[in-house]
């Protein structure tokens, strides 16, 4: 569905020195510097995938998604959507994509929500019966029927997000891009958004690409993640496989009746505080049951729990590398 080849983007940065002196200096000799934001990345996305882009702020994930959706012109490389280059055939290719960008709304603030959809109907030349069918479907998933006649300026953030989601899907695109869609949303709005993404992916087989800082989004939605740092792809693959590879261990948390905690020769004791000790062991070498059995031979155990390496651990490791 999407082919990204050797994609790069440089920004020209104008540096401004602080203070009055810097301001005066900037007046006569502005300082330019080229900053690479995305460096030579390539990947392929199949139809029907949900792919999550994660990475720290300024890592280049927004830049990447904006190049993929035709907003930014790449410095080098290409983005093909369904085999067509989006930079060269923008008007044609964007008919096939929908976009929801963070807190930026494409709805008309002054008019009722339905008017924004009507405009899009004309822009995308949607036939009336398709338009009606899409709106019905969207109403089923998001329940927008009750807000469609409300002026956008009177809507809550959650309702506006729903409006923007529908606006992005009104022309039934095959690809949906979402840049930080859950930022600033409350729990129920987040839930509605995730449900929406899952539904359109299941029913319409829409390919979904999203960037997020919210690990819940990733866990709930993405089978595949691409981790970007310093403008390059650090990891790309199946979420659980990446977890297995980067963090191939589990942690057993054991509570004893006093402060003494025995060592285990094949585990690393990562923490020991009061009566509680944490043992980290490799999944391929040992099972939790074995560790428990070994430890209980040495000392009476009061309570245990097992911690899997979470996605946040993965990200922490990936960011540091």
């Amino acid at each position, binding site marked *: 569905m999407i082919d990204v080849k050797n994609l790069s983007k440089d920004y020209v940065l104008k540096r*401004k020195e602080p*203070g*009055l002196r810097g*301001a*005066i200096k*900037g*007046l*006569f000799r*502005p300082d330019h510097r080229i900053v690479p934001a995305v460096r030579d990345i390539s990947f392929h996305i199949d139809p029907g995938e949900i792919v999550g882009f994660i990475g720290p702020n300024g890592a280049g994930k927004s830049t990447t998604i904006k190049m993929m959706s035709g907003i930014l012109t790449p410095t080098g490389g290409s983005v093909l959507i369904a085999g067509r280059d989006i930079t060269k055939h923008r008007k044609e290719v964007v008919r096939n994509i929908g976009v929801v960008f963070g807190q930026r709304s494409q709805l008309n603030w002054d008019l009722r929500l339905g008017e924004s959809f009507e405009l899009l109907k004309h822009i995308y030349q949607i036939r009336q019966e398709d338009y009606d069918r899409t709106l019905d479907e969207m109403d089923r998933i998001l329940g927008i029927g009750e807000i469609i006649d409300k002026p956008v300026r009177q809507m809550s953030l959650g309702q506006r997000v729903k409006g923007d989601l529908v606006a992005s899907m009104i022309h039934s695109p095959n690809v949906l891009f979402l840049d930080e869609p859950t930022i600033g949303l409350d729990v129920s709005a987040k839930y509605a958004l995730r449900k929406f993404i899952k539904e359109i992916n299941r029913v319409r087989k829409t390919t979904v690409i999203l960037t997020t800082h919210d690990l819940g989004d990733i866990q709930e939605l993405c089978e595949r993640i691409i981790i970007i740092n310093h403008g390059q792809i650090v990891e790309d693959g199946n979420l659980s496989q990446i977890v297995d590879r980067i963090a191939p261990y589990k942690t057993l948390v054991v509570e004893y009746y006093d402060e003494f905690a025995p060592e285990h020769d094949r585990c690393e004791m990562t923490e020991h505080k009061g009566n509680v000790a944490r043992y980290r062991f490799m999944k391929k070498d040992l099972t939790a049951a074995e560790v428990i059995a070994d430890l209980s031979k040495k000392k009476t155990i009061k309570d245990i729990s097992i911690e899997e390496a979470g996605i946040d651990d993965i990200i922490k490791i990936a960011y540091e590398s």
Partner: protein
Amino acid sequence: MKKYLYVIKTQIIKSMTYEFNVYGNIIMQTIIMITSAYFWRALYKGQGMVGDVDAESMLTYVVLSSVLSVLLITNVERRIEKSVEKGTVATDLMKPINLFGVYFAEDIGAVIALVFQNMLPILIIGSLMIRVPVMADVHDLPLFLISVIESFLINWLIAALFGMIAFTAVNIDALIQVKKHLLRLLSGSIIPVWFFPAGVARVLESLPFVYIYQLPLSIYIGRGTRAEHLRQMGIQSIWLVILAAAFLIAQKKAAGKVMVQGG
């Protein structure tokens, strides 16, 4: 006082950060000044004194009017409008620092930055391309400077009073435009009101606008006697007092009104 000085300094730095704005402004203002100069040259072709002023004095008037227009900028009305729009008025007004003091300090800061950024370049360009704006009588310099300071204050107070309308009506964009047009025409910044029919001119001389541009410029080019100038500066001062009083009253009322709404 220190707080306000800090605001002034910050605004100077802020104003100087955008080099393109600076060059763009100079170019635009230069073009406006030069087109005005040719406008008057065309009018004065083959004519001596019109309206008690000759062509040379009129060109001085044009150059100095451009220079003055750089100093007579205000942002206070936009600031008030923004603060109403964003709904931060109530908290802004309750801050321990006087809100209008801050706006005034900001405008002063912007003007100081503009003296170097725009005013001097415009003065130099005007001197080179149109005419060195020599003062008719150097002894009038103190009068001229005092009248400029008063005209800055009058201009600022009118802007602030207009801005306060934002406390009641929501959108003052159009009103700001009306004010701008009125000021341009009625202050003598483009055409001195002595070219207007006598009746109109007389009415305008009892309004505050001509004391923003036309009075200091008349003193500079020496149109009229010193006695006339002093009399007009008297009217200018009266208007300053009236506007200041109106401003203080309006400020109190606005604060009260916002408090009530806020509570």
